[in-house]
């Protein structure tokens, strides 16, 4: 089981597209069509400025895409 971060609409708008140096945060869809991002963003120094906001995102179980 993989845990990921899931934003609500307001959080998505506030955080999606954040850039610092060569790093960017862009939520992606998981296999359940939900916007998510991996927990690794919490320890990325380039995202230090938004760390507190990232910590507030809901933690949910990741749904993988079916293999084609």
């Amino acid at each position, binding site marked *: 089981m993989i845990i990921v971060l899931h934003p609500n609409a307001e959080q998505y708008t506030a955080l999606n597209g954040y850039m610092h140096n060569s790093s960017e945060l*862009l*939520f*992606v869809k998981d296999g359940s069509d939900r916007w998510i*991002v991996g927990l690794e*963003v919490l*320890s990325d120094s380039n995202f230090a400025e938004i760390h507190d906001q990232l910590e507030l995102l809901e933690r949910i179980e990741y749904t993988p895409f079916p293999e*084609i």
Partner: protein
Amino acid sequence: MILASHGLIASLQGGFDADYQGILTYATTQGYTLPSAGQQILQNQLVLDLKTGGIWTKLDTFAVFATDGNSDFALIDWKRLSQFTAVNSPTFTTNVGFSGNSTSAYVNTNFNPSTSGVNYTLNNASRIMYGDFPSDSGYPESAAGGLDNLTRSSNNNTRQRINQGSSNVLAGPANWTGNNIFKSLNRTSLTNIEMFGNLTQTSTTATSTSISNNNQWLLAGNSAFSTSANIFKIYGMGASLVSENTDLYNALNTYITSL
């Protein structure tokens, strides 16, 4: 000893190659952490080897992720003096490169071959990569995470694509997986494709259709994201590099094994 020897050569020649010096100058301007002095000599030699082999001028985009500079330095496009982007925190390991997290992390080369390709054309194109691509580890790269310009880390798989849309597959498969391996996919004509795994060549066919009008992404494909098993150490795109493969492999392998 080897570093000292290379350093002596660089010193006698009056400094670094102008293109490599340009990379260092760009990085300094951006405030990035440069590689160690010893590694700068190795990287300079890599540029020289690529030039000697006639490879450098055929590349449109080229990045060396395996470095002891910081992650921002690792994402410099050596050909365009611009940046690849680390999206959603792919893991950067010093002197190794970038790996995925299975859910959302990837590297955007910011290179769109349709709008930025000079050497990379419809029927004369290559994608080259050095790293860990073990069997059954998913899709190391693709156009914007989809099905165009996709590679698949699976033995005897025909879903390797270069300028052939999102559905065409290879006429014949190739074993093309492994750790610390050099892989390249070269389109040499409307139909012909040459694949290399280190120095082993496989010839096959797939008809070209169009150049993808999307940025090439690493660690993503088929709407999924690579596990940590896939590790990119070096990546590039340009013209076909079939006759140059031995020199290309030797240049990249010499650099990687010197770290």
